[in-house]
């Protein structure tokens, strides 16, 4: 890491490895998650996302690597890690026979909060997650979105500084999904670090400060959403002109542009940064042509995803095999 981080990292892993039998699930992973940010681990089904979460949350021992989570060594002090984290797994981790309130009380008791403090936190979380009306209902009577909210509320009873959300919005309707996003943003605003796995590109784009793309147990790309987008070919400026003459003039000075005489547009390859934008506009000024409008197309995360995981968008040497693996239509569960 060359960036200067004043806070200590919430998670740092170097050389993390895990295999089940002969099948290597995580292969020499290095990653650093800065405190108070959302870090998204993006990948298709079976990439190893859940295994990574289970290792970082002390549920599964790694085969190798040096890993610190929330300031504690994962191997040497797992209880220290456990006391600082909260986990909301892919599968609902609520007690279906208990009510909403009893589930939260159970968590408060397991955090040994005592009657008064426990009661206060439970009441606060019920209020915050809008579970007041169902507080006395058994969990089995809640909707999917409500169960998911309860799941997260239970994770927060212990006031963790670092939470793991394993595919938090998989299977939720759009409203519940946006609700979940709002809650994640609130948590980060309070200084909580969120380690999120998702197979939805818009989710990572929407929430995460940094994204790592995991594919076949390796991190194939890492950076801010914008950095990742910039690393992808396919970005361009689209210039529209009011008359064919201006279009021809502009095309003659802009070289490698793709010209569309019907729409009176030019597409100029560009990574969308200010310098290249200025260069294009200055060139046009030189021949006294002004575009009617200008749009910048940066590749979205779909492009990033397919490019780095060797999908259909960009042909790389391993593309065909990887592309078919990526498609993986039957939602095959990751190895647990």
């Amino acid at each position: 890491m060359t960036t200067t981080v004043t806070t200590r990292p919430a998670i740092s892993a170097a050389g993390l490895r895990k295999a089940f039998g002969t099948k290597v699930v995580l292969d020499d992973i290095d990653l650093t998650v800065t405190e108070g940010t959302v870090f998204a681990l993006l990948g298709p089904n079976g990439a190893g996302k859940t295994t990574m979460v289970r290792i970082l949350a002390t549920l599964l021992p790694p085969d190798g690597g040096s890993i610190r989570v929330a300031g504690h060594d994962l191997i040497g002090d797992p209880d220290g890690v456990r006391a600082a984290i909260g986990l909301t797994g892919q599968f609902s981790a609520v007690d279906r026979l208990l009510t909403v309130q009893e589930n939260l009380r159970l968590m408060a008791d397991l955090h040994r909060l005592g009657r008064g403090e426990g009661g206060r936190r439970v009441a606060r979380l019920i209020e915050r997650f809008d579970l007041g009306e169902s507080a006395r209902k058994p969990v089995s009577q809640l909707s999917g979105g409500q169960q998911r909210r309860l799941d997260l509320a239970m994770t927060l009873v212990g006031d963790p500084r670092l939470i793991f959300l394993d595919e938090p919005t998989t299977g939720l309707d759009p409203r519940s999904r946006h609700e979940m996003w709002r809650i994640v943003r609130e948590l980060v605003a309070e200084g909580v670090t969120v380690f999120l796995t998702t197979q939805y590109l818009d989710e990572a784009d929407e929430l995460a400060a940094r994204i790592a793309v995991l594919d076949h147990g390796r991190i194939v790309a890492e950076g801010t959403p914008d950095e990742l987008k910039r690393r992808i070919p396919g970005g361009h400026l689209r210039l529209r002109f009011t008359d064919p003459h201006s279009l021809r003039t502009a095309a003659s000075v802009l070289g490698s542009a793709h010209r569309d005489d019907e729409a009176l547009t030019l597409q100029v390859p560009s990574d969308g940064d200010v310098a290249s934008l200025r260069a294009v506009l200055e060139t046009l000024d030189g021949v006294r042509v002004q575009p009617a409008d200008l749009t910048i197309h940066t590749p979205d995360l779909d492009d990033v995803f397919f490019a780095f995981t060797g999908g259909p968008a960009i042909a790389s040497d391993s593309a065909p095999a990887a592309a078919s693996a990526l498609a993986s239509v039957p939602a095959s569960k990751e190895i647990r």
Partner: protein
Amino acid sequence: MTTLAHSLTDSGTMLRRQLLHLRRYPSLTGMLIGLPVIFLLLFVYVFGGTLGAGLGGDRSAYLDYLTPGILLFTVAGAAAGPAIAVAMDMTEGIVDRFRSMAIARGALLTGHVLGSMVQSFLAVLAVLGVALAIGFRPNATALEWLAVAGMLAAISFALTWLAVALGMAADSVETASNTPMFLSLLPFLGSGFVPTETMPTGLRVFAENQPFTPVIETLRGLLLGTGIGNSAIVALAWCAGITLLSYLWAKRNYNKRAAR
């Protein structure tokens, strides 16, 4: 707080969870009481005249003979409860949640065992109540009653740990609800319902040497004053052995399953 104090607090919390489950589903406890009561009535009123005569007495003599076996039958039947509950826990995400928290490792299983023992005791009290109501007349002293409670607690503890281990080893909740059923058969293949002397040799050897027989003989001796001999020692040894092996098996499976 010390580790021991943590362990006690967390086990207490997990026990409360199990008691809430019991309260939410009284029908399960009802079933665990219902079956032994039906068997008690069936054997006393349908077969009891004939069986009592076979023992050289009458129906009320058979009721006295039968009750200790029925009590053990009750405890054995109650073992299905924790097997199902543990298997349900293991198939849901909640165990991952518990394991990712800084709580005492054994607390979850301890909660299951203690909760199930509470359930067993409720069932035993109810069945004993019915037996007394229809004429069971034990001659036990207060001290002997205490020993009866202790003997039942020991076998209940052992069978519950066995059930927890079976529930942990089961791949599904359905399997978990079936495997402990053989426990309910054992009182029949022992001295629970008829004396073992009348059985064919092979079966008799099994019946006299299986763990439930010394437990039944001990209960019978304490309640009715028949000879106990070395039954109590043998019974307690069986309980200790079953508990220890089941505990180790359950713990091993818990760690193994959790690590998948």
